[in-house]
């Protein structure tokens, strides 16, 4: 199955957002936007699904919380009983305040690292991963919109090109895969 990808390049994020709005109003689905910086409000315009990174972060945090609790229970209470601030009651619950800072820190550590690694993996931007953006200039000062004919069965490639031409673009490129 052949798929034609149309890349429309813009030199300003506002022009891209305006163009995307126009295309979306015609019923065209914009697959992806490549940009050197986050474009405010673009998610809603091209209909990107709400990120699930928050759910992932919660799960990583929960993991950290449990690991810290189990770890400290084992280290400080079970394996080698510690005298905590002159309170050698050898009970996790009774010494709970002493454990809270570490629980908190470890929760944050796991949530933050888990989130960052997930983000990089999901975006394919871990160090060493091949770049997937269509044009190196999208890391500098250009903004590219990607439209696939496979996702727009109502329109042919030339129809989409004609519509893109009516926006304030700077370059137009087409690729068949």
């Amino acid at each position: 199955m052949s798929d034609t990808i149309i890349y429309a390049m813009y030199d300003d994020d506002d022009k891209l957002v305006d163009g995307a709005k126009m295309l979306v109003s015609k019923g065209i689905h914009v697959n992806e936007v490549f940009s050197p910086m986050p474009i405010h409000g673009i998610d809603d315009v091209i209909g990107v699904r709400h990120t699930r990174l928050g759910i992932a972060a919660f799960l990583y945090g929960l993991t950290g919380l449990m690991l810290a609790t189990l770890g400290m229970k084992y280290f400080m209470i079970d394996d080698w009983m510690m005298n905590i601030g002159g309170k050698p009651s050898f009970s996790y619950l009774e010494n709970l305040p002493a454990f809270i800072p570490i629980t908190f820190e470890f929760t944050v550590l796991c949530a933050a690292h888990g989130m960052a690694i997930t983000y990089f993996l999901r975006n394919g931007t871990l160090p060493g991963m091949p770049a997937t953006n269509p044009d190196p200039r999208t890391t500098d000062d250009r903004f590219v919109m990607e439209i696939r004919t496979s996702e727009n069965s109502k329109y042919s490639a030339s129809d989409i090109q004609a519509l893109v031409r009516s926006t304030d673009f700077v370059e137009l490129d087409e690729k068949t895969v």
Partner: protein
Amino acid sequence: MNFQFTSKIKRNLFIIIAAGLAMFIIGFSTEKNHMYSELANTEDGTESLLVEYYNELPFTKEAFIDRVKTAASEQGITVDFVDMTLHHGTEVHGESTHHDEFEFKMLLTPHVKETKGSHGHDEGGTHGVEEDGHVEDSHGAHGGVAHSPMETLEHIVHEQGTFPDTGHARSWSNLLVNAFFFFGIGLGALFFIALQYATESGWGVVYKRILEAIIGWLPVGAIFLIFVFFAGSMHWNHIWHWMDPAVMDPGNAHFDPIIANKQPFLSQWFFWMMNVIYFSVFLLFARGFRKRSLQEDLEGGTKIHMKNFAKGAFFLVLFGYLSSVMSWHWIMSIDTHWFSTLFGWLVFSGIWVSATIFILLLVFWLKAQGYVKFINESHIHDMGKWMFAISFLWTYLFFSQFMLIWYADIPEEVTYYLDRFGNYKWILWTTVAVNFVIPIVLLMSREAKRSKITILIIGSILFVFHWVDVFIMVMPGSVFDHWAIGFLEVGMFIAFLGMFIFVVLRTLSKAPLLVTNHPYLDENLHHDT
């Protein structure tokens, strides 16, 4: 468009204030005081009850002893009395303050009355307990008794030692709690507006007039606070222990070296000098911000904006010092022996979150009345984020203070929490739990921060519990164990809330609800997160 402070709203507010005052008067007229009793172990291991009172009692010592004896013998208990009142024979000047004259300090030891052939129990007078009258020993012999003799005695002392409070300790302390809580909201709003000026924030421009309206309470709130402080200095109330000159006087029997060491800070002249500084700085900056805000509406340009920027930054510097020192003077010094350098931040986070909540509640009320349509969901969301974040600042600071004191376990520090864990345990932990768990669970999601119902419910709960937080800061050091939340407390809170809303709405009606010439106004009206 201006807010119309209609006579209907005014009438409703007057009804609220009147209802609050009526409840307060009921509470005020039935205010009770009682003698303080605590368990004490004497050197020979006997458990006794130490009964103390340091003010004028409505009955004589002898009458109290008689009544306790009668009530106790009905329960089958005899009581030994030992007068522990200090005798001031060693006093340097031979003169005593009014406190010494009224001092009551007695050690009460209960014994179970011998039922079979009493053999010479001396009822009252001796305190030697060489006979079989030990509490623990006799308890088993009388297996049918529901309470131990000590519990019965505690109950009797509480009953006989309760009398109408002519000093109105609860009313005075509550006046301080409410005066400070609502002054704090005004102060929180003043800090918030200065913060927005200093950071040149664009997101909060639509809130400016609401913040200014809340700041409008500061002069009124200052009057209430100054009144309580003045009453303290005049010894009309006894909220601040250090204001009693006896504790600072080495010749006096009540000389307290720990408090006396703090004399430079806790002295009348320094207290009042600092009060002049606190109030003048807060009120002058509040007045300046309001004046320039109204002026900006007429003139436009960026000159006033840049001036606000400089003044806002300068205010933040002053506020950083003054808010801490202020809370030491006003609140922390109630528990005179205790100190915590973190206390000022805890108080500050409390007033900031209270102010944020009040802003949101007010905005939703105004929206329901058809005003402030320019405040959109994104503005609400941003303010909701503050409410969420500052709730954790508060929890964080509370826990930081608690954990270090718990960990170190130094006597001069733990007293603060021992007082609170003794008689305020459930209310303290409820407050901490509510102020932490409710925001973290229910306010985390983006939708919750934009939802009117969520914000209204959570905001109202947090608002009340931050009032309770101030309550727990003040009460243990000023009314000790005879606190309650009854007609008096609820009534005064409602009356204050009514007055506060009245002043805020009146200030709000005096200027248009939206500023006109703020440089970031246009950006702000299109705010979208």
